[in-house]
């Protein structure tokens, strides 16, 4: 069973370290706009949520891609984009229900979380442990169930 990025928003302080380290790891610059993970913060309530690709098992991005440029990495289970075959039609960015696949105009490329090939940097650098990388099966079962149910509902509502 592959590991997943497990987000616990109640622990997130909105410091955006994950965004910085993510963009630095992938494009060599500290630029939140080019980070694969992005933190949504609501000032009024002080709630912060690091939004990142869920590596869906039935992935909308993969379904809409006309050339099969998005495939599941055998090792990590991450949905990866092949830059060479991608047409830049950007259908995947419109299709992703979480807004986690987007277009980087500067690099002319579709970007999304690739789980850093199995060693996610955001997990290592998050000072409050709001993002962890866990076996989908060993993650606390009841908690996992609750989160899954939550996401399910959110997902349904988002459609």
């Amino acid at each position, binding site marked *: 069973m592959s590991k997943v990025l497990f987000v616990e928003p*109640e622990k997130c302080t909105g410091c955006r370290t994950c965004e910085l380290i993510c963009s630095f790891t992938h494009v060599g610059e500290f630029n939140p706009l080019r980070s694969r993970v992005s933190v949504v913060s609501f000032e009024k309530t002080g*709630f912060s949520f690091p939004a990142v690709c869920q590596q869906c098992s039935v992935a*909308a991005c993969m379904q*809409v891609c006309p050339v099969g440029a998005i495939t599941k990495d055998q090792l990590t289970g991450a949905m990866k984009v092949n830059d060479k*075959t991608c047409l830049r039609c950007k259908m995947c*960015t419109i*299709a992703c229900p979480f807004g986690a696949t987007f277009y980087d105009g500067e690099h002319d490329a579709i970007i999304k979380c690739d789980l850093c090939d199995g060693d996610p940097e955001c997990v290592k650098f998050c000072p409050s442990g709001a993002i962890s990388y866990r076996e989908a099966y060993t993650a606390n079962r009841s908690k996992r169930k609750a989160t899954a149910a*939550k996401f399910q*509902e959110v997902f349904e509502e*988002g459609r």
Partner: protein
Amino acid sequence: MFITINNRQIEVQTGETILQVCRRENIFIPTFCYHEAFGGQGACRMCMVEVKENGRNKNRLVAACTYPVTATIEVFTESDRVQQVRRTLVMLLKRRAAQDPYIEELAHKYEAPLLPKLKVDPQGCILCRLCILACEKMGKSAIWTVLRGIDKRIATPYDEETDECMGCKACAEICPTQAITFLEDGEKRSIWNKTFTLVSCERCGKPYATREQLEYMREQTGYETAQICEPCRKKTLASQVEKYQN
């Protein structure tokens, strides 16, 4: 199996094209009509190389993008003959797309002479057909080549707006010479003689996609997506998670 390219031994898989081998080995071959999503078309002829095959005493000029390696051959990618062909091609292409920086670069490299202007303005199109292939992959096939000879160009049937076009701009994106023009003013998008009113995000009000694109999405995924733009989808997700937490 081994072949030689510019006198260097290189291991290849049977069936790989010369272009694939050269790309892998970082050997320069200019291309216009090649895209990895489609494979070789042999349309632009820019990738011509010289090949010495066993049992033939005369070398052949072949398109590297459509030549699969099936026997031990010798390939030359910058021989005099190759350079001569590229010079001619670039000279002709430059007349069609004078503004293109890559063509300019090649014209310089191969010392291509300048030709007088064409009577019909091809507006930068070099007829590489990549736009046709992209549109076909999108499952639309809204554009095709029309007319013959020097009048040949890419168009929708009778230059009219077509039901097939969904305004995704995949054609304009892939065009190597940026010859496909479109207009976008925030609310509307016009391409191939068709004007689309963009659908606005239900959350922030920003227009973000055509109705036809959303329709395509529905067809491919089998579900209805809320009409929310990409940045707002994150926010929507976050506010819903927040709601469930409390």
